[in-house]
């Protein structure tokens, strides 16, 4: 395939940034996280920190729980716009190399999510801490930089996880109604009950990078690597589907 890779990347950039639902949910990653950070930390921030045994570092990234919903929406809608009314046919007539098309799209989605994720993670950390008074954690303290950086990577991985699943299921609605209840309810409930195995769930594992000290068998980076594994499986499944199926 001699269609230029940079040209296809540029084209995918135009496609994603020119669809309101996709660019909107990307902005929402930042906006929702920051909003929840301000609301939480300006009200109950110090009271929470006063609780003995609370992981202050993990608490600092509390609002990422909301940002990740937006990140998942971004991943899903960025892909699902190809599955509306046969839009994929137009895309594949322009770029018939399906692997190139898919890789370029995912690279743009992942890149955008990573940049926005890092900005979100660092900003919400710093803004949140500004409300914490005596409990403030600085970026220089152990694990903090790792958590802030890892939080951004985590958002990007969840975005790609959702995007890969959307390529398989061909519907943002299906993916969102699968992932959001999963993250809000199943992972939460199962995580508290099952212990050992639950830490390998995509959101649980990835969020280990945000903790001051990990308790289970997974460390902060290995946890994030497990989430990367989930994302990789979803991306491969999506790639396989795009290559195999009639458009």
């Amino acid at each position, binding site marked *: 395939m001699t269609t230029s890779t940079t*040209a296809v990347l540029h084209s995918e950039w*135009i496609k994603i940034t020119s669809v309101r639902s996709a660019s909107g949910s990307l902005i929402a990653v930042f906006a929702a996280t920051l909003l929840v950070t301000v609301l939480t930390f300006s009200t109950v921030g110090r009271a929470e920190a006063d609780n003995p045994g609370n992981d202050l570092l993990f608490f600092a990234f509390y609002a990422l729980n909301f940002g990740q919903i937006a990140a998942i929406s971004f991943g899903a809608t960025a892909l699902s716009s190809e599955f509306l009314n*046969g839009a994929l*046919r137009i895309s*594949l*007539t322009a770029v018939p190399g399906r692997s190139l098309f898919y890789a370029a799209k995912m690279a743009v989605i992942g890149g955008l999510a990573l940049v926005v994720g890092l900005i979100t993670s660092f900003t919400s950390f710093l803004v949140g801490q500004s409300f914490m008074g005596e409990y403030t954690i600085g970026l220089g303290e152990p694990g903090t930089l790792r958590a802030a950086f890892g939080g951004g990577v985590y958002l990007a991985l969840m975005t790609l996880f959702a995007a890969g699943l959307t390529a398989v299921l061909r519907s943002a609605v299906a993916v969102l109604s699968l992932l959001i209840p999963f993250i809000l309810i199943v992972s939460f409930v199962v995580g508290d009950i099952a212990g050992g195995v639950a830490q390998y769930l995509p959101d649980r594992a990835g969020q280990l990078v945000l903790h001051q000290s990990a308790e289970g068998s997974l460390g902060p980076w290995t946890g994030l690597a497990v989430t990367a594994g989930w994302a990789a499986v979803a991306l491969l499944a999506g790639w396989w589907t795009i290559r195999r199926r009639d458009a």
Partner: protein
Amino acid sequence: MTSIDVHELTKDYGSTRAVDHLTFSVRPGRVTGFLGPNGAGKSTTMRLVLGLDRATVGTSAIGGRPYVSLSNPLRRVGALLDAQAAHGSRTARNHLLALATSNGIAGSRVEAVLVEAGLGSVGGRRIKTFSLGMRQRLGIAAALLGDPEVVMLDEPSNGLDPEGIVWIRGLMRKLAGEGRTVLVSSHLMNETSSFADHLVVLGKGRLLVDMPMREFLASRSRPGVRLRTTESTRLREVLIRKGYEPAQDDDGRWTVDGATTEEIGVLAAFEGIPLLELSNVQATLEEAYLDLTSTEAEFTATTPPAATTSPTADQEA
């Protein structure tokens, strides 16, 4: 020059055979009308040629190469498949810009094709605000974007207003006149007869006809003439004497089956009967097509069920 070549192309969707061992070529420099009822396999064939669907058996090529192996394919082939496919929340300009960018086509072409398609003033509007006719024009603009040698249009006059239909007709004639290869599917016979030079007709996924339109019409017409005269009575006597069976129409004209203008013109001149009008009667494309399908219906009715898969289950998009 670039032809579209389809060889033994076959596509099964589950147990439904949408396209059945099709072999034909679309040549440059003329407009080829791609005819058949809904579900005959026209859209499927186009998708197979564009590499969007995978053929069960057989091959298709553009200028000797499979579509998927073309570099910057929009510069070789422009296609309109479904005007509804463009994402509604993009502007027309961004939609075209994304396509142009992927194939290294200059951004100035975006404005050029918007203007050519009559959308010059609405390029900044979101596609969801477009009428069906405007979407159709946008789809045609996208097909023209790469100045391609091959143009494939699936039902391009769908939703177009009368002005748009005249425009698309002129456009197709112009593209063929420039030596491009133009394949246009339609289920509207009168519309197709106004622009096509050549016909490829499908029925239930199989090739029924691949010939110049004029030849197709002649093969499906009985000769006959229509005429108008000031001396009906004398002419009628003369014709009956010569063994013809003239019949008068409601509007006062006469129809003579089995005659040619040469025979009748010379005869009338010899008898000194003034003719005000004299023309050959030829079947319209619609009549020729219906004649073809009625004979085909007889044929398919006597064919074992295996060959007559249900056309309604065809995945015509």
